[in-house]
């Protein structure tokens, strides 16, 4: 699964950034064409937009709720709501930012309205994660991670994330999991990047405390 929303970190480290930018611009131009067709009721065009962003929208909702059934519903509702509101899309931001905002608001509303909380129902972890360099390095560092299986780590991680407040969870997921930049997050959340940074710092501190037994 790709994470095309590039981070500032990725921009600095990625030598192919120069090649990526025109591709992103082309995609944005494509988006505008598809959006215009969708605004005229062309469902084929909208189908293409759904295919483009379905994974990213799914991921943000899933990472916020940690429940695959709720995610399925909310992801569909997001695209349905976006289609109904697409005539009001003026192109002030990219279509992706606009769509992402709908998904985030929908998810936050859902979490707020469920006073009893959301039970976890996790997707299975791709087996290839064990070869991921980040995890390999963590396990080789003689940490408690060596003795715990992957599913347990996943569960502990999700429990810790759910303990954060929504605004802090959202920022840490968007930045550290989805790989979005501070500015992108600020645009989506309609706040300044300083707020994003401070929320991110606080969220990481909290997570570090909550996961201290794994990070010793």
């Amino acid at each position, binding site marked *: 699964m790709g994470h095309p929303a590039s981070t500032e970190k990725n921009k600095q480290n990625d030598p192919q950034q120069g090649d990526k930018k025109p591709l992103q611009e082309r995609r944005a131009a494509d988006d505008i064409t598809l959006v215009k067709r969708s605004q005229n009721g062309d469902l084929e065009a909208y189908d293409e937009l759904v295919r483009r962003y379905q994974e990213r929208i799914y991921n943000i909702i899933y990472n916020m709720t940690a429940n695959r059934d709720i995610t399925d519903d909310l992801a569909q509702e997001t695209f349905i709501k976006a289609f109904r509101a697409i005539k009001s899309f003026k192109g002030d931001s990219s279509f992706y930012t606009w769509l992402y905002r709908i998904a985030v608001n929908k998810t936050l509303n859902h979490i707020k309205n469920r006073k009893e909380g959301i039970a976890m129902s996790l997707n299975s972890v791709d087996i290839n994660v064990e070869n991921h360099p980040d995890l390999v390095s963590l396990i080789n560092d003689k940490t408690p991670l060596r003795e715990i299986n992957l599913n347990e780590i996943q569960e502990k991680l999700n429990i810790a994330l759910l303990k954060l407040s929504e605004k802090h969870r959202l920022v*840490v997921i968007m930045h550290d999991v989805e790989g979005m930049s501070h500015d992108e997050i600020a645009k989506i959340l309609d706040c300044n990047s300083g707020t994003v940074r401070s929320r991110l710092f606080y969220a990481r501190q909290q997570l570090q405390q909550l996961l201290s037994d794994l990070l010793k």
Partner: protein
Amino acid sequence: MHNEQQDFERLIKLLSIKKFEKPADGYFDNFSSRVISKIENETQQDQESWLINIIRSIIKRPSYAAGFALIVIALAFAIMSPIKGGDIQPNKGFTQNNPWEIAQPTKSASSINGFNQLSSKIDETHNSSTNPVAPPDNKPDSLFKDTQNNPKIFILTKPVSYP
């Protein structure tokens, strides 16, 4: 920023596991078609008239039908009640200003009293030549005056004498 990254380096590595949580294989193959079919269904539903929706909901839930029937009966009663009500006070009935005002029968006054009040009011106010009930402007003097009951009074005057 760099220190910040170092401080949380292990945490960020751990969070990378989240990127590998995936839905079941093939989940995204038919996701868009599900979304599009839902949009099509909703659009079709919107186009159906509201009346069909009411009838459909009544058929689905009998309690709605009972509620609907109650509303109809209540409306019928509301319309019929001013016609059935018998004791309408003439001077307090349907007024010119508000013809829909429902007349309320008074507890003390009967309909006859009400009529009398009405006629006396007409006497007082309507005195035109076209109104047969109106009293004439100049009442002629009676030809048969009762002089016995009304004797003439004579006042005798005397010159005052001072001693």
